């Protein structure tokens, strides 16, 4: 059930994103190059005496690292479950568990650093009430915020379920339920992050 559901939702997400980016004449290659440039610039900004702001560099690096980690988490989770139809085990499980810890720590840092920037304001409410909300290009900043908080909303149960599984609190049936909760909320977390990234790209291209 989870396998089919996740394949369908992820496929729909990727198709939508690809077609939308194509409509905006944004290629995946150019995206990848600009991402690498931004990462390089952020690392460069860390060096003392550089032109860029240290604070901005750290802020950007946090979110880029977070993105990389969530991609790694998704790959290690979905390759065995979606492709092979098996549960995670072995090296993939080890990689997933280790990177998940770093992800949670970075996620907490991102929340501290970025949450204020993503607060809703009056102009967001005006967009909400207007017809302009349907125009993604015009309302991209609003959607960036929505997707950020959606990711946080799904991230909380995704992390909480794993923490509860680490202790002998729940019996086998409860552990299965927590695992299912983690699977589905992580899926929606991943989709939210994909959309967050997409809306960020659209808003920067504006």
């Amino acid at each position, binding site marked *: 059930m989870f396998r089919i559901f996740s394949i369908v939702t992820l496929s729909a997400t990727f198709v939508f994103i690809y077609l939308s980016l194509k409509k905006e004449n944004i290629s995946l290659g150019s995206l990848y190059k600009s991402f690498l440039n931004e990462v390089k610039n952020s690392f460069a900004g860390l060096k003392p005496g550089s032109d860029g702001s240290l604070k901005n560099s750290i802020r950007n690096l946090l979110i880029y690292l977070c993105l990389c980690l969530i991609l790694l988490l998704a790959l290690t989770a979905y390759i065995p479950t979606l492709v092979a139809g098996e*549960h*995670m*085990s*072995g*090296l993939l*499980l*080890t990689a997933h568990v*280790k990177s998940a*810890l770093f992800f*949670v*720590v970075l*996620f*907490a840092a991102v*929340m*501290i650093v970025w*949450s204020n920037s993503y*607060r*809703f304001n009056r102009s967001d*409410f005006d967009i909400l009430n207007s017809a302009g909300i349907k125009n993604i290009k015009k309302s991209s900043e609003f959607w960036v915020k929505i997707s950020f*908080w959606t990711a*946080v*909303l799904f*991230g*909380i149960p995704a*992390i*909480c379920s*794993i*923490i509860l*599984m*680490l*202790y*002998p*609190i*729940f*019996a*086998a049936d409860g*552990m*299965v339920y927590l*695992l299912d909760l983690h699977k589905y909320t992580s899926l929606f977390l991943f989709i939210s992050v994909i959309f967050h990234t997409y809306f960020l790209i659209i808003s920067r291209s504006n």
Partner: protein
Amino acid sequence: MVINFYYSHKVFSLAVFILLSSAVISAQDYKIGDISDGSRAIPLHKIKLFDHDSLIILEGDDPQLPLSTKNTCGDCHSYDKISEGFHFNASDSGSADGRRGEPWIYLDWQRLTLLPVSFRNWRGAFNPIDVGIAPMRFLDLFGTHYTGGGFAEKEEIQSPENFFRWEISGKLEVNCLLCHDASEKFDPNEHALQISRQNYKWAASASSEIAAVKGNAKKMPDNFDLYNPNTFVDLDLRSTSPPGVSFGKAIFDEKNRVFFNISKSAGNLRCYYCHSSIQAENEPGSHWNRSEDVHMAGGMDCIDCHKNGVDHKIIRGYNKEGTGKQDIINSYTCEGCHLGNEDIYSYGNNHGAPRPAHKGLPPIHFEKLECTLCHSGKLPGSKTEYLKTSRAHKLGLPRSSKQGDAFPHIQSPVYFKNEHDKLEPRNLITPSFWAVRDSSSIKPIVGGAVYDSLSSLITLDTLLNYGKWHSVSDSAIIGALKFLSKKSSSDSVYLFVSGGKTYELNEEGGLKIGESGISENYSWAIGHDVRPASQSLGSGGCGDCHSFSSNFFFGDVVMESSLKSESDTLIAMTEFSGYNTLYQKAFSFSFFFRPWLKALLIISFSIILLVFLIHTARAIIFLMNKSSDNL
């Protein structure tokens, strides 16, 4: 009109006749004692005795003849159906052999031979007939713990040179009383004794309380005839006598019937005669640490789980033994009783089986591990220990060795992946034997003049090697192989198999070492003794398995070899379980930091939650203010 009535009446009569006949025929498929009418009471068994010629045994018979279970019990119970049961059907070509189980172990330590044999088609076990162990020889070796029936009744597989011996001894029928005679005076040792004397048809009578058997068929001449004293006139009757039975006084009632204390099961102690095992310990008093299986200690009987119908195809209780989801056999596995088989019992809990909580155990463990891994057998130590079993070590017999290191050496526990890709605990033996390879196959040698001469070629140091499997130098093996090769034809090559390897002569006259399927170790799954939950693997936390010094992953398995250069090799458990040692070490090492990592995780999550709640609170306040402004 009249003609129509006549023909319709005929047709109707014919139909009634066919229906009645089929009812009678199907009724004849089962006898009166085969199917229960629902009463839980056991009918009193005061029955007539019949001998092997289906003649009734009377109190005044002279000579008295032993009872035949086939004809006595078979009067009310379908003996043919029963003899297809799992205890008796090993030699049947169509029998379902199921999961590999404990083999019979042919042991001849003077010739460095330890060979697993079985009539079942189990990988790694050799068919006794194929290796030259005729049925009568098989009974000499293993009959003390054999129930009777099967090959012991089949004329077609018996060796022609033993024809006269079988005529004297009679067939060894299924001894129903072994499992169903609940009398405290039933003696399975008598059954064993009579089989060792080749008094096959007397074995059932001797084991029961109703008769005493004396004499020795093994010492009778080939032309022995019980009714013709001239055939045993040369015997010294002071030292031996023909086999004979005498029934107890006053066991026959006025109707020539005898009372048997029959029960569906004679109790766990009877099953233990053949199915006991003990982790061998040499220290006095160490058996005090040995607890009974938790199910038995809880008052259960073996047959509460190991059920069977009239066909006696006894349930063995392992995972996926049943052929389909609906198969009621699946209700009598660990999962079936403790968790329920959703298609038959929606709630499980047969016999009040507690539903396990397994708190905090990630579900992946249930996919990778069998229940027995954590709950059965002995907890893993730094290296495997010897196990003794009833059938391998003749436990329960008057002169069985009480030494913990008596041969054969069975290593336990060893963890393997089974055919369902799940880890399970097993017992392991390391076969050691001489073999011959021709163009098509490799065949062990366990008999014949060539084999017998091997003991003179191999000098064993029984003093220094006391308790240890004997090992010899490479030169002794080379010498023996050279001797054997002189006896061989041009196509045959003699080799020696031991310690998981094959040894044969190379062109330079040295040893060529190899590995092949035939040199594989033989292992079988452990089901009992089940430990209570507080003693299961993992009851002490994740570190029971996932620690740097865990015996579960990193314990050693002692690989015995008959070659001094290879003897007592220690092999890591991960070699058998199929896990990568380095990866498991790294994974286990991460558990060292687990408490701190959990703390870091909780702190980070708390920050995320706190920031989220703060912003949510601010949003709620904003919305409340906005709505009040609008008002």
